[in-house]
């Protein structure tokens, strides 16, 4: 990115000054190194989002930001419905509530190491993944509606989870305001037997080892210690969510014309939050959010079954489950006044600080766990939300490493089978459903996740708690 177009504010903040139709300035959180490497399209897209009606304070991008659809991936923006604020398809994305869930296993690395391959092979067979995969659960029409309206709560009450699982899921695994009539028949048809499936692309199921603890007090509260083994699930709302995105991209394109909203990029189509179209889209998003929670909950059940086969005494408990493609109604202090705003996080993670109500019981007064997935060869991180993030970034942080190389380039450089051997030499056991898919996800195709996390930590948006190293990885 051309730094001459930015005003630096301290070590980690870069302001895009208000020009043209921008209602607010842009704000990118990044180290000098990350911003120099960042795609110029992030600058364009942050500026474009800043033009949308009702946007509050700043159009933001996180240090893992890269070129996306309308919003950059890593984009955050809050809109006030009282002043004509909008809801935009580009700010949520196609994989609604794509997110991560981390489970504590109660096992340490010495327990798991000798049986890692067996464990990964069993999970690979149990958790449906890859192109066109289907699960065992066939939902009837009314059951799909139940899942869309009550998310994880419905699947937990049908034997796929516990009350504790719900307590440690963002929004207790169920957002209100989900009316299934806002979801098209095509989307409902595409749901068929997809709850409890991982999907493909960058989605994964990973066995990880806690390598380092940075904040012993919070780590203790989260129940994490060095050498502990955890499992992380990364997936979203499957075809149902993709279809919601597809359907509303077209519907909101008409709405943007109808309400005369100037759109700088076609993917930014939107509607006023208070309009019938905006309300309907938000309702559909909530349905897909609930579906994604239910999906990760059913996969959790399958993971427990897999562990039971290898480690009968293992007892898997939730650390947390959090989405990173969402639009949420939240209360934030803006210019000294508490406002209810619609926070879009496209490839960004909510990071509530210690003073938030509604945190899971054990985390109250500490802040919410933030799970940041790295790559299958590097590391993932657990952070905790902080007051600074609440004040400066609508309680948001990054979501991953962020790509630095296209899939096309990655496929030219790496081959799936070589990558598996390379990772195995590093002690990481990888099973994938597609060799080509694996090559696209090569660790070298991503930014340095540690640099991204350090920016978040140093800027105070959230604090580092633990570093997780991959030991076994299943890719779709």
């Amino acid at each position, binding site marked *: 990115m051309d730094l001459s177009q930015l005003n630096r504010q301290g070590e980690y903040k870069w302001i895009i000054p208000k020009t043209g139709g921008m209602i607010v300035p842009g704000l990118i959180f990044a180290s000098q190194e990350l911003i120099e490497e960042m795609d110029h399209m992030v600058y364009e897209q942050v500026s474009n989002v800043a033009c949308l009606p009702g946007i509050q304070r700043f159009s933001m991008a996180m240090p893992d930001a890269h070129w996306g659809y309308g919003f950059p991936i890593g984009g955050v923006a809050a809109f006030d419905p009282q002043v004509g604020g909008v809801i935009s398809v580009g700010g949520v994305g196609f994989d609604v509530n794509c997110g991560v869930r981390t489970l504590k296993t109660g096992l340490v690395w010495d327990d798991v190491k000798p049986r890692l391959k067996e464990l990964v092979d069993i999970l690979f067979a149990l958790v449906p993944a890859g192109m066109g995969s289907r699960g065992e659960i066939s939902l009837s029409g009314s059951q799909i509606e139940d899942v869309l309206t009550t998310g994880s709560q419905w699947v937990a009450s049908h034997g796929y989870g516990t009350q504790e699982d719900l307590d440690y899921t963002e929004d207790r695994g169920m957002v209100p305001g989900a009316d299934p009539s806002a979801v098209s028949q095509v989307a409902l048809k595409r749901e068929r037997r997809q709850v409890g499936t991982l999907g493909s692309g960058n989605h994964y199921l990973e066995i990880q080892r806690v390598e380092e603890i940075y904040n012993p007090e919070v780590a203790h509260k989260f129940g994490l210690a060095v050498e502990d083994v955890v499992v992380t699930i990364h997936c979203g709302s499957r075809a149902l969510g993709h279809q919601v995105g*597809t359907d509303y991209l*077209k519907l909101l394109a008409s709405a943007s014309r109808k309400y005369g909203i100037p759109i700088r990029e076609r993917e930014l189509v939107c509607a006023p939050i208070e309009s019938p179209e905006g309300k309907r889209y938000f309702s559909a998003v909530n349905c897909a959010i609930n579906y994604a929670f239910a999906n990760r909950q059913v996969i959790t059940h399958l993971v427990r079954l897999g562990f039971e086969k290898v480690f009968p005494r293992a007892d898997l408990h939730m650390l947390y489950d959090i989405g990173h493609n969402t639009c949420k109604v939240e209360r934030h202090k803006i210019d000294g006044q508490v406002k209810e705003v619609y926070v879009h996080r496209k490839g960004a993670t909510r990071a509530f600080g210690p003073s938030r109500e509604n945190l899971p019981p054990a985390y109250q007064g500490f802040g919410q766990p933030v799970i940041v997935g790295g790559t299958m060869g590097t590391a993932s991180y657990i952070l905790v939300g902080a007051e600074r993030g609440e004040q400066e970034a609508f309680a948001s942080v990054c979501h991953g490493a962020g790509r630095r190389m296209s*899939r096309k380039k990655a496929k030219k450089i790496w081959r799936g089978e070589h990558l598996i051997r390379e990772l195995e030499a590093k002690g990481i056991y990888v099973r994938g459903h*597609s060799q080509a898919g694996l090559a696209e996800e090569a660790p070298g195709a991503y930014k340095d996740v540690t640099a991204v996390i350090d920016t978040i930590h140093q800027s105070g948006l959230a604090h580092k708690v633990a570093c997780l190293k991959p030991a076994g990885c299943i890719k779709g």
Partner: protein
Amino acid sequence: MDTPNGSYSYFEHQADMGIIGRGSTMEEAFSQAARAMFNLMVEVGQVQPRQKVSVQCQGNDQAELFVEWLNHLLSEADIRQMAFADFRVDSLSDSHLAGAAWGEPFDPQRHYPKTEVKAATYAMLFVDQEGDQCVARCVVDL
């Protein structure tokens, strides 16, 4: 891949993939782009065009119709659990498209599954003439 009347290729997008269809007519360009998209998901050369599925869509302009066409094909393949390999656009106006896809039930053993395409998007969307060729392209979300 080239045929007598058209070809398809890919272009880079940092997160996902761009698909391009080219042809002597826009109908051919749309068909080629569809083949490019399905070749991201399966090895299209391994898919037998045994079964026909008709597709109709509406839009406000040809660019919107292009994205609609691709997204209709994705949902049809998903709902029917099929893989598609051959495509034909029979009629194309500024507001309506009629076409068809040919394929067979998806078989992970034979079709070399790759990466699911979540959606065709408006990103880098371009539907127009380039010299004497018709070109249709957009980014697909993987």
